[in-house]
């Protein structure tokens, strides 16, 4: 049997953008074989799956993932076969969103993250669809406040801080950094994944239209910038609804999710024409 080709996938995104939840759901779906998927689980081989198993355990139990710490980045490898039955070993560093925040704010990249990023063959960028910080202007806010008869409290102006930047600015700069020395890798494919898609499904926009509407600066950059990426966009609900934190009461709707016979059917993926439960779709597009 031919040795599997190894594809290193960088999973990028700001803090709490759904990276770890996606990995948890992906591992469950592949191993459980509950739903039809584009990528099929191949074998465990000699890997250590402790980290993935713990993530999937929390996911199945309806418990939110713990924050991935900068100091405890994990690298996981999953052996799969694609639609052409080609064996592929997918390597994902489970990188902390704070590492990406640090790049924007401190203008430096942790060496461990840089090593992963420079070696990547493909990239997934996660964006939490429901926590996008859009830019707002003093003129608009003050004008609206006055129309509503609300007092504007400007007694304590806030000094500039990189953390105040709109989400789309941070993401454009992140992609630019990934394309420039010292982190540049060979272009490749870029899957844009809007996580928590169930939260914005009411807007009835395709993921592509959502990008253009909610993140127009990123949309322009992706469609017109000299970045060399071939990109595609998905909306993914990896949980199906809200999960609970440890020692928290279950939020509305969780009971219904947990009652589903197949946990994989909590997942919704919007990419092409139809909604599916196949969370491997973005990764399959990257490796096919």
């Amino acid at each position, binding site marked *: 049997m031919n040795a599997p080709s190894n594809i290193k996938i960088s999973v990028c995104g700001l803090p709490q953008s759904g990276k770890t939840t996606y990995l948890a759901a992906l591992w469950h779906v592949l191993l459980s074989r509950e739903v039809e998927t584009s990528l099929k689980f191949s074998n465990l081989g000699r890997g250590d799956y402790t980290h993935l198993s713990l993530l999937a355990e929390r996911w199945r139990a309806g418990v939110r993932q713990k924050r991935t710490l900068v100091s405890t980045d994990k690298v996981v490898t999953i052996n799969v076969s694609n639609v052409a039955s080609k064996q592929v070993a997918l390597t994902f560093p489970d990188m902390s969103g704070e590492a990406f925040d640090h790049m924007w704010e*401190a*203008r430096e990249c*942790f060496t461990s993250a840089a090593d992963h990023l420079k070696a990547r063959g493909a990239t997934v960028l996660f964006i939490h669809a429901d926590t996008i910080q859009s830019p707002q*202007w003093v003129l608009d*806010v003050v004008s609206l406040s006055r129309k509503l008869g609300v007092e504007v409290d400007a007694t304590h102006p806030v000094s500039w801080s990189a953390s*105040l930047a709109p989400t789309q600015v941070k993401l454009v700069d992140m992609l630019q950094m990934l394309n420039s020395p010292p982190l540049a890798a060979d272009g490749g494919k870029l899957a844009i994944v809007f996580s928590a898609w169930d939260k914005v499904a009411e807007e009835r926009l395709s993921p592509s239209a959502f990008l253009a509407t909610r993140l127009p600066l990123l949309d*322009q950059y992706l469609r017109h910038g000299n970045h060399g990426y071939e990109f595609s966009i998905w909306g993914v609900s990896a949980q199906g609804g809200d999960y609970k934190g440890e020692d928290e009461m279950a939020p509305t709707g969780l009971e219904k999710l947990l009652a589903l016979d197949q946990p994989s059917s909590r997942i919704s993926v919007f990419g092409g024409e139809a909604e599916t439960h196949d969370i491997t779709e973005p990764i399959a597009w990257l490796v096919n």
Partner: protein
Amino acid sequence: MAADVVVCANPQCKVAETGKCLEGLEVSQCPQFGKTPTASLAAEVSQSAIPVNSGEKLASLTAEDVLRAGPGKVIAIIGPIEAGKTTLIASTYDLFQKGAINKIQFCGSRTMIALEKACHNSRAASLRERAHMARTKLGTFGYYHMHVSQGLDHTKTHFLLADRAGEEYLTAASSPSLLRDFPEVQRADVVTVLLDGERLLTQDTRHNARAALMQVIQALFESLPRMGKQRLAIVLTKYDEILRAGQAGELAKRDFEAAVASIRKSFGGRFAGIESFIVAASPAHDVLAFGYGMPELLEYWIEDFRAGHAELNYQPELLRAMDRILVE
């Protein structure tokens, strides 16, 4: 008594300055919070890191590298103190935040940190009641960069927008030889000269504002090296103030039109083109939309893609003369 100092064992964590844990945790949950950063502990919890692009304004040499990478435009923006030079740049960038500007698309920027800083005081996140632009400090000259695409063939252009303190232009207007030392003015594809609309509204500043404009144009006339190659944009700023000023505003508009007519008459042959614009880049009042007049100015800046690749590290004549002497 000194206040308690907030510390973290990880020297890379800036929680003391920003209140934000590097790990994104509540400080009560962070195992490193509150510990003194001793060398051994720091080595255990911190990570080595490599620098990435600073995102700050570009120095002239870096700007040259950008121009070598593809077609580019250098825009010099000249005006008195607080006329709104940085506001024009910040407003252009902020309009891209909402989408394409008259089919001109944003393709990226090497100076996103600098642009974000420039925009901050007109953003709601600043918690201000009125948009305000911080003055460019003396000695902080540099270029803001935006890469844009235009037209059906998506022609791409690197925009380098020069940012220099108003005081320096004020001095140079009285001594044209100084303008020859400003690389952005010498290399500019479009020299953009501002007339502060607010200063036209009061009798004690009105005549001086017009006179200062004429003096700057005269200084340019005497110092620009590329006869007939550079275009001139004359921009009336803070149009929202003019609109609110009633009769004084009407007078201000007439003053501006008269100044433009005079410039065309006296200096028309010196420039490849002269156009006037009226803008409210970041209005303080909601009589006009944010970025009023900026799309037209941006289109003027971007038109004509035949920009050359002249060097930005322009050598003043004196230096060149000395070089000649040395060579001889």
